[in-house]
């Protein structure tokens, strides 16, 4: 049950930069691409996202499973949109929609629908590419520090670090509880019984993990109170320094955000109908 933020990008160029970089890049990229509609703009954005992703040098075989899952899920959702939204409710001005073919249930698959789906697919792929380094290219423990240096407050930053600390503990307690219940003939995946019975069947797993962790939290709370947590001005020992390279990356993405906002506000990033679909 390996569930944790594994520092796969250890030693990479990006990992040596300031840990605030991946956070700022993800924030700006998501804000920018949400405004862009034109697939050509998004394709340019995708190139930018993947050059950035390459800086994290995350070993491919370690994330192969994640990427395949991601591509399948995003592809399925996007194609589902294409089929069901038809013309995309007026995303395209003027002419009527071009029907490519109709599915057995009379659902029309249109050129507009397909190009909308492609647009969404490219957007999501880019966002995923900038999201991976947030988890894999920030050294363990730096996430809380980076959030604090982004002025999100002492308590929130410590809390995020505490959450990352608890994930492997919760995963271990979950597998220990599952072992203990299996010895008593418990099978969480049993298909017998009605819907409500099957939902209730998770109780022997959920109660120990949830209530057990909460009962155990008393010691954590005492340990933090005893070391003066949340009782006044807090200093953070390690300092962060945005070196030139870090600034270059952040500024590049801020520039991209400004450009995207400009294009979107001036209406120059409308949905683009893929020409090869209609000729």
């Amino acid at each position, binding site marked *: 049950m390996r569930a944790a933020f594994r520092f796969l990008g250890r030693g990479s160029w990006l990992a040596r930069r300031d840990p605030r970089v991946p956070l700022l890049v993800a924030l700006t990229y998501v804000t920018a691409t949400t405004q862009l509609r034109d697939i050509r703009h998004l394709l340019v954005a995708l190139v930018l996202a993947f050059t950035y992703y390459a800086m994290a040098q995350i070993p491919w075989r370690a994330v192969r499973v994640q990427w395949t899952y991601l591509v399948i899920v995003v592809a399925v959702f996007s194609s589902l949109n294409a089929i069901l939204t038809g013309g995309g409710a007026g995303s395209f001005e003027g002419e009527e929609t071009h029907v490519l073919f109709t599915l057995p249930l009379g659902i029309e698959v249109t050129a507009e629908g397909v190009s909308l789906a492609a647009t969404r697919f490219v957007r999501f792929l880019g966002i995923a590419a900038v999201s991976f380094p947030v988890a894999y290219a920030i050294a363990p423990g730096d996430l*809380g520090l980076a959030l604090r240096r982004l002025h999100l407050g002492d308590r929130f930053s410590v809390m995020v670090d505490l959450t990352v600390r608890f994930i492997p503990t919760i995963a271990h307690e979950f597998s220990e509880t599952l072992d203990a219940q299996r*010895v008593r003939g418990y099978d969480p995946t049993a298909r017998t019984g009605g819907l409500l019975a099957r939902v209730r069947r998770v109780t022997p797993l959920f109660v120990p993990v949830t209530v057990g962790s909460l009962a155990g939290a008393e010691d954590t709370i*005492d340990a933090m109170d005893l070391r003066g947590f949340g009782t006044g001005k807090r*200093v953070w020992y390690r300092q962060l320094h945005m070196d030139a390279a870090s600034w270059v990356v952040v500024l590049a993405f801020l520039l991209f955000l400004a450009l995207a906002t400009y294009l979107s506000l001036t209406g120059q990033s409308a949905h683009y109908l893929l020409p090869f679909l209609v000729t």
Partner: protein
Amino acid sequence: LSFRYQRRAEPALRDVSFEVAPGEVLLVAGPSGCGKSTLIRALNGLIPHSYRGDLSGTVRVGGLDTRTTPLRGLAPVVGTVLQDPTRQVVASTVPMELTFGPENLGVEREEIGRRLARVGAESGLEPLMGRTTDELSGGESQQVAIGGSLMLEPRLLVLDEPLANLDPVAASRLLALVRRLADGGTAVVVVEHRIEDVLEARPNRVLYLEDGAVQFLGPMDGFLASADPTAVKLPFEAWLGRVRAGELPPGVPDADRPSHRRNGAAPRLEWRDVDAGYDDRPVLHDVSASLGRYERVAVLGPNGSGKTTLFKSAIGLRPLTAGDVLVDGVTTAGQSVAERASTFGYVFQNPSQMLFAPTVRDELLFGPRNVGRATEDHDQIVSVALARVGLSDEEDGLEGRPPRTLSHGQQKRLAIAVALALEPRTLVLDEPSAGQDYRSATAFMREVGRIAGLESVYFVTHDVDLALTQADRIILLREGRIAADGAPLEVIADRERWIACNLRVTSLMEANLRWGAHSGAFLGPQALATLAAAAELGGGTDHP
């Protein structure tokens, strides 16, 4: 000092008065629930700042009154290390855990840096500095937790049952650190049941609590002379002294040792060249052993040597990567975990982890209902299981109570009753003595041995004397391999191998090697003391 928790009728502390001088190690001992942890909360200010209740009397630490000084003011004066170190570590990396305290108190950066270097060197934390906290073992987590407290440069350090889940090597490293701190001028209060194991730190004085009140406060040797050895784990010399002085009735060796009777049948549990482990970590390497149907077997070995994995692989919770496991001579390949549960009752290292049902009764019936026991048997299953672990007579209405509101000791017994509810013929216990005081641990194991219908008991433990006195056979595990397998006296004969498995040579072992060698069995302290006293009267110490 007296204190009563808000929702409790009985006070947890009654009229406790004592002092701890700089450089002194005070040992606080006493049975479960006698108020040790409450005393510690009064010292570090959690009472009254975090725990509500009736507090009378005063506590002054480093000249500060804990009632009027906020926790922020007390933090640089009193450092506390709680019983479960993994819950005390809050940061993701070791350096961040160490700097957590000074950061909260706003200590400026250069000073934190200096302290980090000093504490890292003094408490031997250098090798751990690069580690993340989720990879640390129990012993390493405790070292980091202690470091975290020392970073605040306390004048008083308090440790609540620090030896609970440490193997002896980690334990003596901790006790050496405690003594070094005391010699350096820090006052240290250590709460611990196992008196003998703490002697290494040479405590100056002992405070013995019973039911919240001070029964003894004085030097260690005075305590050893007067304490009741059946209540607290004392060195063998204390037993010998009591028996010699006639203060204790002569002890008779356990008569009902079933050891080798009726063992002709096929072995209950057999590993044949077994390899097992976790996805990225092989643990057991080519393990072969066979445990008798009527035997009581103890498995000992350092932390992480694979003791838990050994039994998890036996009952099918961990897949075998090689070899085979046989139960009663039949291979278990293809058998489900539930099928094996009819033979083996398994009680986990953290017994309360599995408790989930709304009432004790439902908790006991969860297993039987899953394997399809008839409803008319249910009442009988519940009453028999509770009676076998001595829970039925404790208080009425226990059946209807939520399991997690029971005391720690009661939850442990309930976990065994839950295993017994499936009527297994063999019971597997992982660390039965963890978190229990000496008297209840030994009584507990003796009762388990006498449960009706139970043919054999296999248990994993760090408590050397418990293993040697309660088992017919000892298995030593080291780095996933069987290092030794035989009767207690045979296994302890090879001292180097014993120490290589991180095991301590206890005073009872020395005494058995000296006086008990001819009796053919490893004797408990009372029986051995009687033998030794008689031998002394007869002139020769090794009188046959």
